[in-house]
């Protein structure tokens, strides 16, 4: 099992420090949450891990890989997948095609096979379709399989977003506010999915979330960011009693 180690990462935009000397170690097989007030740098940190930003200083390692300067499409092949906060789906494609796109790297046939289609391309497409169906089954997306993603409701689109990250077959799943803007029922569904992912699929989950109730309930480890600085970490009960964290969330009297 591989650890994700973020060491002394600083991310600077012009004169602004989005992240300052952040150290995080994500242990495999656990649900780790990153919380903090708006603008604390949570999404910036995820962007650094998934390769959309590159840290100004410091290093990010995942097992034997160095992610510091790797591009997103390289990182997606290392077993790290990411679901976006604002829906970044392929709106003009069906749910099925969205998920099949995540199998892009597993569809290893040449363009000539693709043009002829019969034979190799057809066989590999069918094999990957079977994997996609496994994810559809798990995320309970069966009724929407052939629907255009752009026409689906927000809650379902969010679920497709998580499903697409899952279809990459990662060991480490980065979820950026998967429950934002959802009602209680939809939140409960997503929480159930995340817990099942940990238990049944043995996946490591990194969760960025604003709903503190959910975070405290399901996380094994919590890291708290404020203004780009790590102000607290540990098990949920440790973080809940950390005076710095209480200060950041509630403020002084």
């Amino acid at each position: 099992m591989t650890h994700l180690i973020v060491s002394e990462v600083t991310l600077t935009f012009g004169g602004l420090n989005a992240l300052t000397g952040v150290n995080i170690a994500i242990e495999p097989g656990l649900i780790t949450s990153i919380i903090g007030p708006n603008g604390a740098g949570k999404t910036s940190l995820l962007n650094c891990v998934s390769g959309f930003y590159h840290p100004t200083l410091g290093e990010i390692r995942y097992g034997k890989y160095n992610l510091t300067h790797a591009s997103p499409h390289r990182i997606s092949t290392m077993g790290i997948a990411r679901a976006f906060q604002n829906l970044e789906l392929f709106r003009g494609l069906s749910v099925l095609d969205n998920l099949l796109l995540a199998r892009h790297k597993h569809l290893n046939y040449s363009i000539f096979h693709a043009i002829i289609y019969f034979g190799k391309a057809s066989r590999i497409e069918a094999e990957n379709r079977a994997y996609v169906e496994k994810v559809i089954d798990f995320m309970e997306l069966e009724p929407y399989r052939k629907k255009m993603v752009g026409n689906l409701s927000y809650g379902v689109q969010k679920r497709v977003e998580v499903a697409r990250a899952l279809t990459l077959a990662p060991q480490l799943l980065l979820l950026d506010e998967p429950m934002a803007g959802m009602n209680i029922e939809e939140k409960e569904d997503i929480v159930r999915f995340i817990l099942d992912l940990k238990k049944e699929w043995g996946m490591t989950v990194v969760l960025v979330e604003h709903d503190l109730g959910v975070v405290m309930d399901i996380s094994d480890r919590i890291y708290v960011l404020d203004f780009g600085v790590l102000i607290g970490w540990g098990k949920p009960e440790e973080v809940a009693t950390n005076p710095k964290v209480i200060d950041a969330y509630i403020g002084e009297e």
Partner: protein
Amino acid sequence: MSVNRWLATGNYFTSYKEEQRIFFTSLDRSAMGLLLLGLFLWPLFIQLDNKYMLVIDNILVAVVAVMGLNLVTGFAGLISIGHAAFVGVGAYTIASFARVMGENHILLTHAWPLMIVVAGCIGAIFGGIVGLPALRLKHLYLAIATLSFQMIFQWTINFMDFFNQGQTISVSRVTWVTGQVSRSQHYTFWYYAILGVIVLAGFAVRNLLRTRYGRCLVAVRDNDRAADAMGMHPGFTKVYAFALAGFLAGVAGALHAYLYRGVGVESFTLHHSISFLAMAIVGGLGTLHGSFLGPLAIKLLDLQVERLSEWVGNHLTIATNLATALKPLSFGLVIVLFLMFEPRGIANWWRIVRSYVKLWPFKY
């Protein structure tokens, strides 16, 4: 319960492989078969004037070109205003061979299918090179980069002696198994040849679109950030889209050169690029059958408007000047009307009619 493959009801699949089919019902497949059969057989029964046969051939060449443009602009979402230049690259590939080896060289007259593929490959190479700015540029900036290629192309052809400074370079008649294609058979022969190319290219594109090589185009159109996170290099995917479009454009160019038995720069100007774009929009961006309907609609409209302006010129001599302006006017008007009222093109009408017929007599 047994499977009924003829209608949508009762037509179910038990394996993922079965579900990959292009035609979901046998009815669809038979209709397509009949359409193709009709397209191949009608010249045997109806003898058309050479003038009209040329118009039909012209539409078919445009279909090949627009199929390419639809891949890059419709599916991959990259506006290309230099498509006529890519078609020109294909045509001038044939012209260059004619200049270097002589127009009656055996490669040009006998191995013409090979030459068409070679022209396509050269088109793909140029497409890839012109697509390189897509690694950095997006949207309108990229469109301007393709426009610059159109300009460079025209200047290069106009100022190089090798290309006869844009004047016609002739290409000889080709030879088929029955011997040299004569003057009277020329247009019918090329009708069949181009139709064959369209059928091959059409099925190739349809196949491509149900594999990773087609899906990645739509992915970079809809969201290139997410495409990046899904493991594809968005920049290279765009370059690949341009290369694909360049290939089909090159093939169209070679067909144009053989059809007209000559290549001149006046067939590959900016005006033609915009016409191709209009055909793609009117037909329906991002749909395969839009590539067939668009050229047909625009070229037939052109023909009718030309007739009308001729008639007006003969009967109302005072309005002759006005009548000549009718063609560009109607062309522009059609594009504006389509962009306003049916941005999804004629292909959308087809979709509506289809779903209506499927559900008839019920509303939904």
